[in-house]
């Protein structure tokens, strides 16, 4: 017994170190379930409150920019509304058209925590499952794709940012429709990489990259960025660097887009895979 105690006392440091390091690494490697663990959820109430307060100050400081972007979006929407009502005026008939059902629904949300300087960036929104946010909804900054929701609590949700090494997005060239896979290489927060575009087609600097809608997350044709430079690598594919339209450093208000027909589509697709 005394030998055992002596042994424990002698190696107490290494034992404490190994136990604690084990806990930390276990947590790290199971990081995906991080937002669901109960301990974390209990603490998050406090940390989220603090983050929200910090962000309130930051938001106030950039009210002018938010205002102008909202005004621009407003005028854009008014223009579209104008076109729609003018068209409808001539022959307005009420028909219950089941083919023209709404496919996407939009909600706005505010970002209360965000980062661009890590390798795996996430951001937090101030709306959660009670406000209708669900996992796998798309997030845009009004016009451009910025991320996808990966976890919701009742009043908050966490989205994986486009600036995350684990993020993949199906994207295509607007000019000719060739599609590839867009990801971030962890270098510069203004640029992402588009892969799998074959070298036999012509791509120009400045070409717009948009979403394809293949993944049933993003609607088709949402802007992502423009080609800033392209290299021919040894393989059959281009190495395209994409300058992102969205400036992730000043993201504040975002739109969350839910696909109402997603479940139906995925059910059908799984039958053939």
């Amino acid at each position: 017994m005394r030998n055992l105690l002596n042994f424990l006392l002698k190696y107490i440091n290494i034992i404490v170190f190994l136990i604690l390091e084990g806990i930390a690494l276990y947590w790290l490697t199971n990081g995906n379930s991080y937002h669901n663990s109960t301990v974390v959820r209990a603490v998050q109430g406090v940390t989220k409150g603090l983050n929200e307060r910090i962000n309130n100050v930051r938001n106030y400081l950039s009210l002018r920019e938010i205002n102008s972007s909202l005004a621009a979006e407003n005028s854009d929407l008014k223009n579209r509304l104008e076109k729609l009502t003018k068209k409808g005026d001539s022959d307005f008939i009420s028909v219950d058209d089941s083919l023209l059902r709404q496919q996407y629904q939009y909600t706005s949300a505010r970002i209360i925590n965000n980062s661009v300087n890590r390798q795996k960036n996430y951001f937090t929104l101030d709306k959660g499952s009670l406000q209708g946010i669900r996992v796998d909804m798309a997030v845009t900054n009004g016009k451009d794709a910025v991320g996808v929701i990966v976890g919701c609590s009742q009043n908050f949700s966490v989205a994986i940012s486009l600036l995350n090494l684990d993020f993949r997005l199906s994207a295509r060239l607007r000019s000719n429709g060739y599609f590839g896979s867009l990801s971030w290489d962890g270098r510069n927060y203004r640029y992402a990489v588009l892969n799998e575009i074959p070298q036999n087609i012509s791509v120009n600097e400045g070409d717009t990259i948009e979403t394809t809608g293949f993944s049933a997350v993003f609607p088709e044709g949402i802007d992502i960025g423009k080609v800033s430079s392209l290299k021919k690598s040894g393989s059959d594919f281009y190495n395209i660097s994409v300058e992102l339209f969205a400036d992730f450093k000043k993201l504040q208000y975002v739109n969350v887009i839910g696909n109402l027909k997603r479940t139906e589509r995925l059910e059908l697709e799984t039958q053939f895979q």
Partner: protein
Amino acid sequence: MINSILKYGLAILLLILFQILVLNNIQFSGFVNPYVYIMIILLLPTVTPSWLVLIVSFLTGLAIDLFSGSPGMHASATLLAGFARPTVLRIISPRDGYESGSSLSMAAYGFRWFIIYATTIVLIHHTTLFFLEVFRFADFFRTIFRILVSSLFTLGFILLIEYYRKGR
């Protein structure tokens, strides 16, 4: 005794708040992330038993993890720094040894000793942290570059705080 525990408790709290409220919100060019909270491990007095250093390191890392939404990265990196601390202190001990009552400051042991000590611990911490963050060895040299630049900034902040403490 009680007095110095209170003093260190306050210092720990201040450093953690400084890290999460100020430094985590400064996002320089995407390469630079100073993590000044590691000073907590640097400054614990020489008489602190090693197991207590480990527990303080773990709890500090845990607090930073919870507030920056990273699972266990800071906890494991800070813990490793805390584990290495006694060995580092033994290797670079000054000729007359450490005075048992004093704190490990620049004022007590001089600039040269302090910079060696701080650089070693900061490099251990940042190397672990940044490699755990990337979690792969691809882009090895870019990660090394990020570690070096961030360490430089962290050391800069630590020296500023030390000069301020010395001046008082």
